[in-house]
C-alpha cells in the first residue's frame, strides 16, 4: 500500500521499509526543541530519568521566547534553569535574549530544520516546519525529556487529509487567510490525530513564509502535523541556510487519504476567526462594526519579515486610530534588523505603533500587551480561546497582518480593501 509524505518520513526514521496508519513506531529524532515554559518541566523529568547527558548536544535546542525578556522573578528563574542546563550539557543551540527569536521563526531561519527531518518540540506550534517538508510535531515536556535522553520518540502513524491547492491568492490575501479558511471549514478537531498534506500546483504560488503560517496552524485543526511538498522555493530557502543533505519525500500515487479537499486559492477572501475558537471564521460580508482596543502583529504564525512588509504597506503614511494600541513584534533579531534597515520600523513608529523585541508575550497573555476585561484585540496570532490574551471577558480576533494593519488604522475589525481599495 502506498504511503503519504508523513508516513515515508516516519518509516525512514524508524528503520522500516514501510509503515501504515495506526502502527506504533519508535523513531529517531533530528531535533528536540523546548522553550522557557516547557523546558523546565522537561529538565525536571530528564533528571528523573537519570541520564548522564543529552543524546546529541547539536540536536537539543532551547529558545527563551515565551516570558523572555524575563517578565518577572519566576520567569527569570525558569530561564536560568534552562541556561544552566544548556551550559552543563554543552548544548550548542541555546538561544537567549539578544540571539533568540520566536522559536518557530528562528529554527527555519537558522537552517536547523531541513526537508525529511523528524522534529519534536515541547510547543504545540512545532508543526510549523512541515512547511519545509519535515515531519514536525508538538509534544509535552516528558516527551521532550525522553527525546533529550534517548534521541527517540514513539508515534502512532497518522492517517491523512489531502489539500490540493490550485490558483493563486489575491492581493492582500495571505497564508493566514488560507489556513483560517481551512479551519473554518473542517473545525478545530477536523484533522484530529491526522496529517494535513498540502499538494498541487497552487503550492508554487505560496511563499515559504505563507507555507510556514499554514503549517503553523495545523494544530488549530487538531492535526498531528501539516506538511507541504518540497519544491524549488523550499530547496532554495533551505540551501541558503544549511549545508545538510536532505531528502524531499513525495507521497506515493496510491497513498491513502481519508479525505481530499480541493481549494481554489483565488477564491479565498480576507478571513477573521471570531472569539473564542479558531473555527469561528467569517469573511467581511459577515462582519459588522466591531470596535477594537488593540492590534498585535507578530507571533510564530505571522512575525516574519513578509508579514511586517504587508502591514507596513497599509500603515505607511497613515496613523493608528485613536484609542487603539498597535504592537508590532518582529519574530527574530534578523527580521528586526531588516525592518530597521528597510525603514519599516520608521513607518510603524510614525503611524503610532510600538515595536517590541522578539517575544511570544501577548499571544498567550503573558506580557507585552495583556488585555483588560471586555477589551478586544485583532491579532495575527493563532489562538483566541477564553482568556488567551488576558482577562476572561476579553476577546481575540485572529487575522492576517494586512487585516490587522487595516484594523489598527480604522479602529475596528477591517478589511485591507477598506483602506487600500480593490
Amino acid at each position: 500500500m502506498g504511503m503519504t509524505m508523513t508516513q515515508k518520513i516516519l518509516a525512514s526514521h524508524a528503520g522500516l521499509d514501510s509503515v501504515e496508519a495506526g502502527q506504533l513506531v519508535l523513531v529517531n529524532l533530528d531535533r528536540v526543541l523546548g522553550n522557557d515554559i516547557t523546558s523546565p518541566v522537561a529538565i525536571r523529568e530528564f533528571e528523573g530519568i537519570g541520564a548522564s547527558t543529552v543524546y546529541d548536544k547539536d540536536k537539543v535546542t532551547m529558545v527563551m521566547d515565551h516570558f523572555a525578556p524575563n517578565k518577572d522573578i519566576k520567569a527569570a528563574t525558569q530561564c536560568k534553569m534552562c541556561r544552566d542546563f544548556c551550559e552543563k550539557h554543552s548544548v550548542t543551540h541555546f538561544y537567549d535574549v539578544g540571539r533568540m527569536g520566536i522559536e518557530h521563526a528562528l529554527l527555519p531561519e537558522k537552517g536547523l530544520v531541513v526537508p525529511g527531518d523528524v522534529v519534536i518540540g515541547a510547543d504545540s506550534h512545532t508543526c510549523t516546519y512541515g512547511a519545509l517538508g519535515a515531519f514536525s510535531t508538538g509534544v509535552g515536556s516528558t516527551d521532550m525529556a525522553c527525546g533529550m535522553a534517548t534521541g527517540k520518540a514513539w508515534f502512532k502513524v497518522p492517517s491523512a487529509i489531502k489539500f490540493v491547492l490550485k490558483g493563486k491568492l489575491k492581493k492582500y490575501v495571505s497564508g493566514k487567510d488560507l489556513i483560517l479558511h481551512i479551519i473554518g471549514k473542517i473545525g478545530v478537531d477536523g484533522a484530529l490525530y491526522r496529517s494535513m498534506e498540502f499538494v498541487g500546483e497552487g503550492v508554487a504560488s505560496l511563499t515559504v513564509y505563507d507555507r510556514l503560517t499554514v503549517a503553523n496552524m495545523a494544530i488549530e485543526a487538531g492535526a498531528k502535523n501539516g506538511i507541504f511538498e518540497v519544491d524549488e522555493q523550499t530547496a532554495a530557502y533551505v540551501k541558503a541556510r544549511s549545508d545538510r543533505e536532505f531528502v524531499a519525500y513525495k507521497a506515493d500515487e496510491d497513498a491513502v487519504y481519508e479525505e481530499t479537499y480541493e481549494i481554489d486559492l483565488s477564491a479565498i477572501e480576507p478571513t477573521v476567526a471570531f472569539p473564542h475558537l479558531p473555527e469561528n471564521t467569517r469573511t467581511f460580508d459577515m462582519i459588522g462594526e466591531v470596535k477594537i482596543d488593540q492590534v498585535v502583529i507578530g507571533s510564530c504564525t505571522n512575525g516574519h519579515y513578509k508579514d511586517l512588509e504587508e502591514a507596513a504597506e497599509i500603515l505607511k503614511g497613515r496613523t493608528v486610530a485613536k484609542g487603539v494600541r498597535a504592537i508590532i513584534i518582529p519574530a527574530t533579531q534578523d527580521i528586526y534588523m531588516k525592518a530597521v534597515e528597510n525603514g519599516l520600523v520608521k513607518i510603524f513608529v510614525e503611524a503610532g505603533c510600538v515595536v517590541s523585541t522578539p517575544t511570544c508575550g501577548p499571544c498567550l497573555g503573558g506580557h507585552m500587551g495583556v488585555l483588560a476585561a471586555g477589551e478586544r484585540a485583532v491579532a495575527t496570532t493563532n489562538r483566541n480561546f477564553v482568556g488567551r490574551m488576558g482577562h476572561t471577558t476579553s476577546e481575540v480576533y485572529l487575522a492576517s497582518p494586512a487585516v490587522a494593519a487595516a484594523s489598527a488604522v480604522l479602529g475596528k475589525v477591517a478589511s485591507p480593501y477598506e483602506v487600500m481599495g480593490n
Partner: protein
Amino acid sequence: MKFIGKSIKYGDNVDTDVIIPARYLNTIDKKELASHCMEDIDKTFVTRVQAGDIMVAGNNFGCGSSREHAPIAIKESGISLVIAKSFARIFYRNSINIGLAIVECSEAVDGIKEGDEIEADLDAGVIYNRTTGAQYKTQPFPAFIQKIIENGGLVSSIKAGVIK
C-alpha cells in the same frame, strides 16, 4: 485500574489555556499549578474537587497548547480519571506520559450528569454510572500504550527498559 468518584462535567473543546492559564506558567510547582486548575471556565472547581473525582467532557478535550502543566494541574487537583468523547492529541500523549488516567467514551459522556457517582474499570473496559445504573463499554488501549501506563508513565518505562 479502577476508579470511583463523583463526576465534574464540562463541554466540548476545553482548551489548555482554560485548564491552566498561561499567566501561571512561570512555575513548575505542581501544587501551585493545581490551585489555578480550570480557573478561567470554572472558578469553583478548585474549591469543590475532591480526591478521586472524575472529570467528564465532550470532544477535543485539552486542545491548544502542548503545556504538560495542564494534565499535571488536573492530576494534582485530585482528579483520578478524565472521560471525554475525544482528546486533543498532545494532551492525550502527555496524560499517558505523566500517568493521568484518561479514556474516550462518547456514550458515557452523554449519559453522565454533573455530580453522578461513577465507577470505572479500565482493565475490564467498563464505566458504570452508580447514580443512574447505566453501564458503558470502553476500548482498551493498544498494548504499547498499556505498557507505558502499567509502568507509571514514560520516564519510568524508559528507566525500566520497556522503551529503548
